[in-house]
């Protein structure tokens, strides 16, 4: 993958209006939602547009879609696509459980869940894992930016080891890798992509919607406001030629913090 974060901005514009109809006679407009209230240039908006296009191109009846989300910037986006689908902006970290219930109550629904890395990998990790284990019929998208947006930039559990948060905190602990976790839990459809690579995201989404069972899409989606600075592994400064891992990443800008402060820098520690 060679797209850079800089490419994202041109994709965040809504798809051009067109009178073209799909196989069930709907236009792209019929798959749109409310106006996004996210920051200009947010990677999540690019994903929203990919979702709109994917459903349009597949010709899915929006009435048969349930949109589910937890709490966070990513979770707000279910309001920004598929206006004719029922949506549920539920509780922080608990979308996996709500979606599991919804998927079993009406087995004809296509359940699309949008979550973030704080929502899924931090507070909701247990529920996420069990949803995958049960193979509930859900397309589960994680818009992964390594930080909490709505509470202003705190680290999430997918923040890379060594990355420096906007507050100056350097992350000491290993990130949660949602894809390998999903694979370990027996997930039949796991993909990782990048919000800026809209064509790939759209292709993956269509495949995920067609998949019967849980499909996990971990989509790296930069936060232009709180995770876009020197020292961040998810900033515009990063060339996304390969995804940083705990093995290959070395912080080039900062020394390790003094020992005394270490315990306080571990996200999620009591």
């Amino acid at each position: 993958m060679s797209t850079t974060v800089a490419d994202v901005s041109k994709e965040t514009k809504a798809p051009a209006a067109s009178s073209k109809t799909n196989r069930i006679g709907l236009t792209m407009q019929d798959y749109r939602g409310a106006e996004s209230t996210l920051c200009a240039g947010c990677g999540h908006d690019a994903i929203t547009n990919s979702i709109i296009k994917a459903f349009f191109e597949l010709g899915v009846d929006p009435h048969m879609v349930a949109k589910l989300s937890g709490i966070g910037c990513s979770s707000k986006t279910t309001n920004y696509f598929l206006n004719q689908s029922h949506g549920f902006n539920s509780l922080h970290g608990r979308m996996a459980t709500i979606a599991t219930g919804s998927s079993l109550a009406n087995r004809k629904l296509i359940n699309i869940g949008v979550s973030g890395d704080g929502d899924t990998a931090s507070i909701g990790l247990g529920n996420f894992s069990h949803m995958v284990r049960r193979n509930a019929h859900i397309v589960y998208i994680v818009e992964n930016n390594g930080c909490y947006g709505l509470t202003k930039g705190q680290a999430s559990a997918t923040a890379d080891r060594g990355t420096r948060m906007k507050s100056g905190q350097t992350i000491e602990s290993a990130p949660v890798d949602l894809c390998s976790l999903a694979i370990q839990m027996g997930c039949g459809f796991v993909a990782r992509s990048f919000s800026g690579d809209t064509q790939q995201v759209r292709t993956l989404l269509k495949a995920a919607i067609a998949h019967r069972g849980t499909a996990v899409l971990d989509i790296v989606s930069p936060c232009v406001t709180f995770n876009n600075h020197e020292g961040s592994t998810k900033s515009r400064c990063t060339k996304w030629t390969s995804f940083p891992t705990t093995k290959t990443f070395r912080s080039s800008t900062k020394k390790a913090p003094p020992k005394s402060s270490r315990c306080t820098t571990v996200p999620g520690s009591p």
Partner: protein
Amino acid sequence: MSQAVAEAETNSDRSASSPSINDLVIKIATPNGSGSQSANLILMRSIFTLGVPVGAKNLFPSNIQGLPTWFIVRVNENGWLAHRNHTDLMVAMNPQTAAEDITELDPGAMLVIDETFKSLVKRDDLHCFFIPFNTLVKEACPETRLRKMVVNVMYVGVLASVLGIPFEEIGNAIDWQFAKKIKAAELNKTAALAAYTWAEEHLPKQNLHRLERRNLTKDKIVIEGNEAAALGMLFGGVTFLAWYPITPSSSLCEHLIKYLGKHRRDPETGQATYAVIQAEDELASMGMVIGAGWAGARAFTATSGPGISLMAEMAGLAYFAEIPSVIVDIQRMGPSTGLPTRTSQGDVAKAYYLSHGDCKHVLLLPGNMQECFEFSEEALHLAEQLQTLVFVMSDLDLGMNKWMSDSFTPSTKPISRGKVLNAEELSRNGEFARYRDVDGDGIPYRTLPGTLHPNAAYFTRGTGHTEIATYSEKPEDWQRNIDRLHRKFDTAREVVPQPMVSETEGSVAGIIAYGSSDPAVAEARHILETKHDIKTSYLRLRALPVNGAVKAFCERHSLVCVVEQNRDGQVTSILRGEYPEFGAKLKPALHYNGMPIDADSVVELVLQRIAEQKGSK
């Protein structure tokens, strides 16, 4: 073989010449995991088929094998089957507790005990029956490994002889208990008969308590509240259950799973027409219930206090997002170590106000087996009618103990899904506003995902939303919405199960009680009237929020004792909040030691409250 000793002096007020008939409490002490449960059920069944009203409480530890457990059988032909603290006949089969079990007996009580524990009996005011259980079980059961189990049915044989239960009833009860396990039934019958015969030959006839045949259990059933509730869910049209195991609620879910598997299969495909998930925790089980309720299922979960705590955030979501959902709370004592297997009414206030923000929930308060059955369906119905979370506040005493009951009559009223608009109605209405109070009762209309209409969809959020379900942080939108929710709560007051009121002319005090306290209160009122010449009136709450019936009752009485099984008088506080003008006359009468409430305790508490009131005048 030892000679039975039954000639002890007694201080009992019972005349030696006329035994009390069909009125006693039998307490059986065994180590748990020893297989005594089957024997205890056989004993209970034999009394039931004798036609005599009987109920039983199982006092068990949070343990699988080895810790003490007691099975308390109350037999009473007048139908008083609440817990009673006095034991008339102790069967002390557990060496670990035998000394203590003997000490707690009142003078004149009967004791059945293995002859090898004879040295433990240091009292001479008991009627003791020393039984050579070891010798008897060796003769009756050749297989050594089975003797530990089989010995239990032998005390049943002894009791049949001592109390005058025809052995035929024991034999039938054994067949019933072991059903298709013919070999086990035969072995147990042989052993029970051996013990019965030995007792007939060797034990002197006692003249304290006898059981005699009656015809008082015809058309009655014996059931546990959790099974009754599971049946209620089945008949109530439940389609979704998510649960996490927790004593004392697990058996409700397990019973329901059994019934669903049997009765809810598509006749053509054989596929299940329901879904059950054992969730990873209570956060998840409630989340799933909300997701399922939102998508159109009749969904519920069952749990106990600690589970309710984990569901607190979800409860607020169900309230504000107005999603039909039901939690059955089988209340018990608090955190997980210590008394998780003891009963309590300690979750009422918590459930009533559960979650953040301005939350108030509808609580149904079943007080007997029929209500455990009926309120399951009622809760599913009200949850959909009111579009909110509804609690059913059962408890361990109702849920896990054995109660005699009239048989159940399923409701004939058609299942109603409440205000759900389908595509046709949406076309007719032209407009759909999810949170608009169209009818003035605070209850809006909803649509389900999958409704094929351009107006059907709406976006569900926890808090800030307008009438048309768009995002809003405007103060007026917020306040209008929570005022409507309050209006809906007022609607609930009139549609929940109404209190049962029994007014007595010349009553000195009013009693308000709820849930499993009912049988003890009913018996206490009888005792108060017959022994103390004190008449009382009684209002049994069957749901919260309350309405005018409770107010009128409080108005009529100068003293209202609120009987509760918790320390702080939780319902008393709720009633004082509803009716501050009655604050002074609403007096809590509280029982909270983990044991089921008994009539003597209620009598004592009510007498205290009456004395206090007289003293203050």
